[in-house]
């Protein structure tokens, strides 16, 4: 009996280690194609992001290939090599190595999140492949001398925190608590908030973590509320952000709730429903979609992308613009370099100033990271949709 149970336990751990294979592949060959690798989360805890990325990339590649990419006097088509990294850092590294060594990609879009990018930065550096990540952690692009080939589209974590803190000051909030997911993405948020607290900009009275497989954070929320913060900041992507919104509402917390841009998918509003009403999120303006006003180039690009995406897929995702921009930046760098050489593409990318869907990029040898601060706005949930807070 006892022995049988012990053996069963061994089998249980074996089961825990196993995962099922789910590889999405797109392979076709023609001479005038530029192979670009895509490492995204088509399954696993960050699947909500991966799906939006895939849709956005499909939309973009169709648009780009309709015109073609001019390199010198030849016109190329983009061939995306899409691979599922299963939201797993280890898998992401294998995917990236395989795309570089086997598919000979000239550049990489991805990973789609901070954990799946951080595991791959050394590999793309040593192989010299320009990579544009959709992960937000500042560590993805710093220190600059060890991230010469790595760029990213989401705003730096500290810019998001700065935007939040401006709003805290405007509303007279001094004491905050933080609920963050326990991975590279959540740690980046925690680090930036702690740095702001150390600088005396805000008082962090409590901080709790949860794993991306947890389905209930009531215990963590109870501890946070007990510290009597005026606002709770949540650093999580769906479905974690959805669960956090529900649990915070259920706890009876009456203060303000702020989310990082990662919470910004349609699932958040759909999943949390009325419970998310009145909560805030710092996000690139594009999520407000049709409510974006103004005739600036950025506003026009954002409105167009929002309309095309919603026309094709029905609803919009806050994650889509990051992937769309990653591909746009690579294409812009290729055209600027006039070459398919990886090093030349990297050098051109570093000199780019570009108005993307997410906002404005001003890359330089010191700055490979994300949109500028004025691309970020504070959104709030009003009648079940994201709207500008002011």
């Amino acid at each position: 009996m006892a022995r049988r149970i012990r053996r069963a336990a061994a089998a249980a751990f074996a089961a825990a280690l196993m995962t099922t294979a789910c590889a999405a592949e797109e392979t076709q060959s023609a001479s005038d194609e530029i192979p670009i690798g895509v490492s995204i989360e088509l399954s696993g805890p960050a699947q909500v992001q991966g799906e939006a990325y895939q849709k956005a990339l499909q939309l973009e590649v169709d648009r780009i290939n309709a015109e073609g990419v001019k390199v010198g006097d030849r016109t190329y088509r983009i061939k995306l090599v899409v691979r599922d990294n299963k939201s797993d850092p280890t898998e992401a590294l294998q995917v990236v190595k395989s795309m570089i060594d086997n598919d000979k990609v000239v550049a990489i879009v991805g990973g789609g999140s901070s954990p799946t990018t951080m595991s791959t930065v050394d590999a793309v550096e040593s192989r010299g492949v320009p990579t544009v990540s959709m992960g937000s952690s500042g560590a993805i692009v710093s220190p600059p001398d060890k991230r010469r080939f790595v760029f990213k589209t989401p705003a730096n974590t500290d810019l998001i925190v700065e935007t939040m803190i401006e709003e805290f000051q405007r509303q007279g909030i001094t004491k905050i608590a933080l609920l963050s997911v326990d991975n590279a993405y959540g740690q980046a948020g925690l680090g930036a908030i702690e740095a702001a607290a150390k600088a005396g900009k805000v008082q962090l009275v409590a901080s709790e973590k949860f794993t991306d497989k947890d389905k209930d954070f009531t215990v963590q929320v109870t501890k946070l509320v007990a510290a009597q913060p005026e606002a709770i900041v949540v650093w999580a992507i769906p479905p974690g952000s959805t669960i956090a919104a529900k649990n915070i509402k259920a706890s009876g917390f009456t203060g303000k709730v702020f989310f990082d841009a990662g919470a910004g998918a349609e699932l958040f509003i759909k999943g949390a429903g009325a419970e998310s009403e009145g909560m805030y999120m710092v996000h690139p303006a594009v999520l407000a979609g049709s409510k974006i006003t103004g005739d600036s180039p950025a506003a026009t690009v954002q409105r167009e992308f929002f309309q095309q995406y919603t026309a094709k897929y029905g609803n919009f995702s806050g994650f889509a613009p990051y992937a769309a921009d990653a591909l746009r930046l690579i294409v812009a760098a290729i055209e600027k370099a006039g070459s398919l050489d990886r090093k030349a593409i990297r050098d051109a990318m570093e000199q780019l100033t570009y108005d993307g869907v997410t906002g404005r990029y001003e890359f330089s040898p010191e700055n490979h990271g994300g949109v500028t601060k004025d691309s970020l706005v504070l959104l709030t949930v009003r009648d079940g949709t994201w709207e500008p807070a002011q």
Partner: protein
Amino acid sequence: MGQLLQFVVTGLATGATYALVGLGIALVFQVTGVINFAQGHFVMLGALTFAILEENGTAPVPAALMALAGTTVIGLLVERLVIAPARGAHVDRLIILTIGAAIVIEGAALVAFGTQPRIAAPFTEGVVRFGGVRLEGQYLWVSVATILAVAAVWVFLTQTTLGKAMRGVAMDREAARLMGISPRRMSLLVFTLAAALGAIGGVALAPIQHPDPGIGIALGLKGFTAAVIGGLDSPAGAVAGGLLLGVAEAIAAGYLPSGYKDAVAYGVLVLLLLVRPTGVLKTVRAVRV
């Protein structure tokens, strides 16, 4: 103090989740000696089909019944196609076969339903409050489902001829066979029953779990831990084990840094298997099977 109460209540609520899974595992083990690692996947199937049907406009009750029927059929197929043909094999091999079945179910669910997490509406809106403690209303439904499932299993095992026959097989296969009870039929019956229990759990859990095909493994492991705490061959023990595990997790998360929650749960499992493999709720039996 109010905090401790909140942790215990939250722990009992999540513990009911583990209890529902553990119940099915213990039931199958009791009758067949096989630890069914596909039990979490039965729960996943129940939750996923319920949520998808509801998303597509089916009313909750028919959606629940369809999820129940569909999952039960899968349970029946798993027994007929995977367990029954290998009947003569050693229990270890059967256990590995259930892991194989679990992986096939997950893979098939991925292909059929995609990787997207689904959202089901709670059965009733709102938050329950009592004595300063707050709880999402859906957890009450999970508790109700657990209580009903335990009661139904108890009545079935002790009050019906079929149930008694099943316990007979659990106690002594050969003697049961001599009394005209077919262990093969009982095996089929218990897997079907376990799948049905899994589906009931899945339906109750769907609004909380945001089900996708990947939730099966984690649920199965927590359920297995619950069953082990309860001594594996006692459905009531599995329920007690699940509740205990939930409370231990919640209190650990409450008073330690919350990142240690899973470490505590699986640490308890490893410790139990090393120190007290017959479960905490039972006196140690000298007989080895």
